């Protein structure tokens, strides 16, 4: 069952991504991107990260891609303008891309991940598998733990042990990001504002 789902989501994501690369039409690219990202969200759900998946859907698919399509609409001179890439570049890119993917995939296959994680756990003596909150994360209800972590309390690490003090979470990055978003908001509004021509009053 899980394999089935993985093949479904993973395959869709991969095919979507490839389609994004191969497609020449920007709007179709956006559509394939939606497919790919949505499938990735499905992968996230499978990985027990339901909140991340939902965020992916809401922000990425619902927000960012809409924004991109919006941008396409605002910048395209005609409805189906495609800017073609030179064939030589396509060939070079495909060769390099294949090599790149091969390298990455080789790496993925070559590394003994279990041994690595075992080594890490023995080094840091914090077995992630024994963490209470962590195992619960598989169930898929990570919203509370994530929210608490953003607010500076790590239930997944702190509970179930005899620790008296909470380990620090991500409150500061969270706040920084919020300020960052505000800055982005203002900056984007400034950059994209309509340029008004100054009319000279004295000439009238």
């Amino acid at each position, binding site marked *: 069952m899980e394999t089935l789902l993985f093949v479904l989501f993973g395959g869709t994501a991969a095919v979507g991504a490839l389609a994004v690369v191969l497609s020449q039409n920007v709007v179709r690219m956006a559509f394939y991107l939606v497919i790919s990202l949505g499938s990735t969200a499905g992968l996230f759900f499978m990985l027990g990260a339901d909140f991340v998946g939902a965020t992916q859907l809401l922000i990425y698919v619902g927000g960012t891609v809409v924004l991109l399509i919006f941008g396409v609409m605002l910048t395209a001179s005609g409805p189906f303008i495609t800017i073609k890439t030179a064939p030589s570049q396509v060939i070079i890119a495909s060769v390099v*891309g294949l090599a790149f993917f091969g390298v990455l995939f080789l790496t993925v296959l070559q590394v003994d991940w279990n041994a690595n*994680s075992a080594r890490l756990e023995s080094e840091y003596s914090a077995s992630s598998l024994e963490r209470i909150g962590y195992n619960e994360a598989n169930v898929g209800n990570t919203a509370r733990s994530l929210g608490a972590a953003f607010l500076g309390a790590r239930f997944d690490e702190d509970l179930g042990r005899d620790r008296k003090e909470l380990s620090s979470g991500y409150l500061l990055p969270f706040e920084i990001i919020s300020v960052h978003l505000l800055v982005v908001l203002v900056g984007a509004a400034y950059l994209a504002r309509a340029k008004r021509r100054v009319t000279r009053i004295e000439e009238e």
Partner: protein
Amino acid sequence: MNEIALEGYLGIGALLFVCGVLCMATKRNGIGVLMGVELVLNGANVNFVAFSKFGTLGLDGQIASMFVIVLAAAEAAVALAIALNFYNNHLTIDVDRANELKG
């Protein structure tokens, strides 16, 4: 039934990543380049979340991916604003035309 191990997710992540890079490298449309960036970030995200489950990252992986998503949205907004500005100045969105800085 075979459990899908870490390698599968990492493979998907790698594929997304490479596709993103290729997208960035081949698309002449500025917005296509942006989409490539999104794909790259997404590939990284898949790795984060996969490690959060199979590796030692725990919740940290999910938190990192959350930050990535949020910052990607911010980046997209700014990049789009830049693209609009570029379009206002050049009446095209072809990134090859943005070569004023060539040596």
